[in-house]
């Protein structure tokens, strides 16, 4: 297969020494195996996720994503924009939809961008990395690269919210998307069927501002993974990953549970299955070590 190039929007959390830097590491290894070239959007900015709304009004927030699209149009005009972060993808895709749905908004946005010497058409496809994998490669192709099948590992596919709603991955349902399970299967591991917290919310950004409420949600997400017999959880979203992994101590303390459930990215699984070592797979980024993966990666 020929090299595939995309205009890449990494997002703040994927930066060096940021909360999802390990995600970025594994994505890089995965792409390397699949011969994907990610061309970073020069000087991209934060999308304000879905929490910037208090300070930023509608237009300012749209302008943020519009700027990224404008920069992408300049740098990589004929490439699809690809994001690995759910929030980044959603914010950008939403902006695109809104701009095309409302000429006045498009006009105003460009007025604003002009101040920065930019102009946006917003015609590039805005896609999540998972879409690239499923649509541009397909499970069969992805399977062909597996050199170390993740045999015997039971994995709960936690899709979460923003990679799933309101857009979601084409052909998947909001309530029971199956793509993570299929990816898990493709990598030779065992998906947890009827994982009923699959698309439940982890509290998102409110994990910071409403920790107790959010941790109650996170608890259910982990519990139900254990109920399903999972060894670990896989997710496509940095916020989900951080929230579900990082607060397990607090939750254990509060609810005296004994959670110690690794939470990894699909790209981590794939890197390992593709024969990358622990570091390349970003396994060193696990607060809760994914031992089974390390073993395989160590082989």
């Amino acid at each position, binding site marked *: 297969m020929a090299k595939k190039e995309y205009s890449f929007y990494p997002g703040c959390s994927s930066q060096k020494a940021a909360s999802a830097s390990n995600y970025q590491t594994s994505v890089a290894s995965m792409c390397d195996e699949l011969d994907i070239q990610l061309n970073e959007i020069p000087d991209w900015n934060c999308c304000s996720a879905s929490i910037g709304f208090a300070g930023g009004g509608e237009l300012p927030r749209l302008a943020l994503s519009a700027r990224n699209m404008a920069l992408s149009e300049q740098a990589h005009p004929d490439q699809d924009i690809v994001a690995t972060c759910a929030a980044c993808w959603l914010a950008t895709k939403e902006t695109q939809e809104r701009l095309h749905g409302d000429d006045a908004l498009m006009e105003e946005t460009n007025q604003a961008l002009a101040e920065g010497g930019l102009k946006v058409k917003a015609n590039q496809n805005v896609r999540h990395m998972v879409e690239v994998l499923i649509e541009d490669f397909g499970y069969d192709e992805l399977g062909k690269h597996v050199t170390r099948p993740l045999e015997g590992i039971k994995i709960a596919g936690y899709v979460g919210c923003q990679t799933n709603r309101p857009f979601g991955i084409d052909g998947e*349902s*909001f*309530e*029971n998307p199956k793509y993570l399970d299929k990816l898990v299967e493709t990598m030779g591991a065992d998906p947890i069927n*009827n994982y*009923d917290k699959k698309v439940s919310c982890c509290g998102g950004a409110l994990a910071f501002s409403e920790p107790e409420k959010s941790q109650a949600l996170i608890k259910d997400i982990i519990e139900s993974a254990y109920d399903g017999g999972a060894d670990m959880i896989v997710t496509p979203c940095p916020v989900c990953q951080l929230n579900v992994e990082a607060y397990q101590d607090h939750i254990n303390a509060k609810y005296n549970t004994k959670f110690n459930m690794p939470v990894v990215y699909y790209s981590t699984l794939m890197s390992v299955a593709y024969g990358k070592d622990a570091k390349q797979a970003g396994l060193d980024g696990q607060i809760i070590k994914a031992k089974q993966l390390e073993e395989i990666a160590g082989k």
Partner: protein
Amino acid sequence: MSDVIATNQTILVVGGGISGMTAALEAAECGKQVILIEKSPSIGGRVSQLYRYFPKLCHPICGIEINLRRIKANRNLRVISMAEVTSITGESGNYSVNIKLSPRYVNENCTACGECAKVVEAEFDDEFNYNLSKRKGAYLVSNMAYPQRYVLDSGIIGSDDADKAKAACKYDAIDLDMQEQSLDLTVGAVIWATGWRPYDAAKIQPYGYDRYENVITSLEFERLANPQGPTGGKLLRPSDGKEAKDIAFIQCAGSRDQNHLKHCSRICCMGSLKHANYVREKYGDDGKSTIYYIDIRAIDRIDDFHRKVKEDPNVTFTKSKVASITEDKETANPICHGVDTEGYNRYSNPHDLVVLAVGMEPSVAKDSFPIELVINEEGFIEQDPANGGIFAAGCSADALDVNRSVQNATASALRAIQVVNRTAGMEG
């Protein structure tokens, strides 16, 4: 089928449900030549699968019995089953229609003695019971089937079962060499009465029809309630065959929802009120019904039926569109989650069984009509001069209850008669 005679004064009725039957009979009883075609092996349509009608709680097949007698007695009316329209060309007063006839593998000799069914072993999902049970590969659609003739499922053709069936028939009624046939008719007017199909409940993802055994549709519930149905009239839930006594009815399952059907299907509220009656009929005070609704649409004089049910202490009305259904892993009880909007009360109610009052979707998809017609966004055929001599009857025209379907079908019969009378130059 070469013996089918039709002229530009003939009226073709497409669809043998209550609307098609009515349109065909009313026209034929005015002395018009009518051909009624039905896709399935028997006419009767969806109403023949219902247990009772609202608001009288009388039995649909009672009316069908009368209609069948009218059909048998009427020489102007010809019924052709297993027939589908493939194309219509021409104009008002002169249409050429091509009809595809699927093989029944059983000819007019059949006496419905049932010997073939006895020897055939292969079983298939019984579509008449919405696949809640199995039927033989040689079968009579129902005791009310008309034509009262058996059918061989094409799935057994070429198998020993087929030969066994043929051997068992003393009347040379089984013809395994039957082929699909094509029939060309000239007709003056067409009444389109292909009716409706239940909206695919699996698409309403939050309700988990495809994930939870004890979430069923209102039409499946009709079969469960019916003594002739798969459970002999017992309200047994699919997961464990236990009697369901605490039953939830969810309105607007697919209706009034831009994610599914935009329109209100009209019949579902009354249907669920009727179902609450079934629950009382079966269990008395031991039964419990909960109706989750947005607006109860018991329109016009039948609102008294609604008010009667409201007085039943065992029936709870909750003004809420259920947000989601989960399943209790131990009991397999579906749990309805949502908010009662009258005063903001959250609920998570477990029930023995959840019945989705699924919406009404036109049977024929907007883009697959054999001739261009004026069809509204909802997929129903509008009454429009541009449709020429083609008239919708019943649920092809709108989401209608039986009573209104029959009125509408009767009206359509007159519209068709106007066309053929004009072509016959009979005015004045």
